[in-house]
C-alpha cells in the first residue's frame, strides 16, 4: 500500500514547545485522525508538513514526492479552522480567484457543492455563519480534484448536524482508493466514526499510531479496587488513574486481560478515554 503522506522524524522547536521527531503515515485510500489535547502539536505537525513553517529536521513526503511544488499542491485540499478566505469576497468571486490559481479548478463541482450545501453564491463571506464558512472551505477543497485532504480542526465549533454532513462528505471522498484524508481534531467521537487509523500526539511526541479498529476492539479499561490493583501484573498496564471509586487501568488486550483476571471488570475504551488515560494517567 502506498502512502499519500509520510512524515518521518519531523522536528520543530519553539521557545515553549518542541515537536519531537514525529513520524506517521497516511496510507492511500484511508482516513487518518490526528488526536491530542490543545497544544499537543497537531497543528504544528500539519503546518510543518504543508511547508507553512520551517522544519528543523525530518522528511515529509506527499503523494510520493518530498518537494512540495505547485504540481503537488494542486492535488492537496487544505481546510483550516475558519474559512481563511477574504471575507469581502462572495463564493462567486472566490470562484474567479480560485480558477486563476488552480489549473484543475472545477467550476461545475464548486457550484454544485455550493448548491448541495445551500450556500448563497452572491453573499459576502463575512455574512456567513461559522458552519457556512466551513462548508465553503470544504467545497473549495473538493473542487480541484484533490487526492489528499488535510483538515486541521475543521469540525471544531460546528453543531453536530453540520459535523455529520461534513463527515459523510469525507467518507464519500475516500470511496476512491486514490483519495486520502488527514484530519486533526480533538472531537474524538468524529474520528471514531470515520478514521481508519489514529495517531495520538502528546507534548510534541507521537504516543501511538494504530488502526482505529485495534483501539476500539482490543483496548479496554479495567476497573478495580486497591487490592486488585496491587495484584495486577505491571506489564499489563499501559496507564492508570486513581478515581474516587477505585482504579481505572488502560489495557491493550481486553480479552486476554479478562481471561487472566476473570473477576475484574473490563469494559471497552473509547478513544476519548484512551487519550485521557494516556495524558492524565500514570505509567
Amino acid at each position, binding site marked *: 500500500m502506498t502512502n499519500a503522506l509520510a512524515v518521518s522524524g519531523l522536528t520543530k522547536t519553539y521557545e515553549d514547545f518542541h515537536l519531537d521527531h514525529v513520524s506517521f503515515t497516511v496510507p492511500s485510500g484511508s482516513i487518518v485522525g490526528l488526536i491530542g489535547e490543545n497544544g499537543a502539536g497537531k*497543528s504544528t505537525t500539519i*503546518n510543518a508538513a*504543508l*511547508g*507553512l*513553517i*520551517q522544519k528543523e529536521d525530518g522528511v515529509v513526503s506527499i503523494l510520493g514526492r518530498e518537494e512540495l511544488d*505547485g*504540481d503537488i*499542491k*494542486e492535488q*492537496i485540499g*487544505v481546510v*483550516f479552522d*475558519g*474559512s*481563511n*478566505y*477574504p*471575507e*469581502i*469576497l462572495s463564493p462567486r*468571486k472566490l470562484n*474567479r*480567484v*480560485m*480558477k*486563476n*490559481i*488552480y*489549473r484543475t479548478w472545477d467550476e461545475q463541482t464548486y457550484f454544485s457543492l455550493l448548491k448541495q450545501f445551500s450556500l448563497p453564491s452572491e453573499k459576502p463571506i463575512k455574512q456567513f455563519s461559522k458552519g457556512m464558512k466551513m462548508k465553503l472551505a470544504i467545497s473549495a477543497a473538493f473542487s480541484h480534484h484533490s487526492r489528499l485532504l*488535510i483538515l486541521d480542526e475543521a469540525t471544531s465549533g460546528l453543531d453536530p448536524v453540520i459535523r455529520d454532513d461534513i463527515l459523510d462528505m469525507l467518507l464519500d471522498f475516500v470511496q476512491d482508493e486514490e483519495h486520502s484524508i488527514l484530519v486533526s481534531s480533538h472531537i474524538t467521537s468524529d474520528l471514531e466514526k470515520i478514521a481508519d487509523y489514529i495517531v495520538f500526539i502528546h507534548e510534541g511526541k507521537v504516543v501511538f499510531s494504530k488502526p482505529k479498529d485495534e483501539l476500539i476492539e482490543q483496548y479496554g479499561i479495567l476497573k478495580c479496587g486497591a487490592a486488585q490493583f496491587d495484584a495486577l501484573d505491571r506489564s499489563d498496564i499501559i496507564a492508570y488513574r486513581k478515581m474516587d471509586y477505585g482504579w481505572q487501568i488502560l489495557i491493550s488486550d481486553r480479552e486476554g486481560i479478562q481471561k487472566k483476571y476473570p473477576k475484574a471488570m473490563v469494559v471497552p475504551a473509547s478513544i476519548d478515554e484512551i487519550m485521557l488515560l494516556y495524558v492524565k494517567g500514570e505509567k
Partner: protein
Amino acid sequence: MKGVLVKDLYIARSNILVTIVSLMVLGFGLSFLLETSALLVLAPVVSTTAVFISITSDGASKWNKNIITMPISRSQIIGEKFLFYILLALLGMLTALIPCGVLACFGVDVTLRSLCLYGSIGISTTLLAGGISLPCAYLFDPEKSQIVFMMSFMASTGIIAGLVLLTNLVFPVKENILLAFNLVLVISIIWFFISYWIAAKVYQKRDIT
C-alpha cells in the same frame, strides 16, 4: 499569480474607486490654485494605499496562511504585491493625467516638461516608499507596518532630497532638473527591485501560522 491579483483587485476595488474620484476632484479643484501637473506627485503615492489594505486583509482573514497551501510559490506571493503596487501607482498617474489633459484642452498651461518632472518625482517617491514599506509589511505585525508605511513616505522624500543634493555635486541640478530627477527615478526603480528580492528571500524562510 493572476488569481491573487484578481483577489486583491476585489479587495481594493472600493478604495481604488474612491482614490480615482478624489484625484479627479483634486485635479480640477486645484487647477485654480496650483499647477495641475503637480498632482502627478501625489497621485501614485495616494493610489498605492490599497496594497496595504490588501496585506492587512490577508492577515486578518488568514488568507496569507491559506495561500501557502495553494499552487503558488512564496516569491510569486510577494511578487504579486509588488506588481499590484506598481499597477496602482501607474493607475494613479493615468488618473492624474486626465484632468491635466482636459485642462490643457481648455488652454491651461500644462507642459510635457512639467508632466515628466512631476511624474518622475511622484513615481520615485512611490517606489522608494514601497521599497521600504512592502518588505516591512511582511516582517512586522500589522500595527508596526502601518507606522512604517506612513514613515516610508517621509523617508522617501528625505532620500530624494539627499540624492538631489548628491547629484548637485556632480552637475548643477537647477540647470538640469529633469535629468537629475530622472536619475533619481532610475535609482528608485533599482531600489524597488532590490527590495522585492530581499522581501522574497525573507518570506521564503518565514513561518506562517
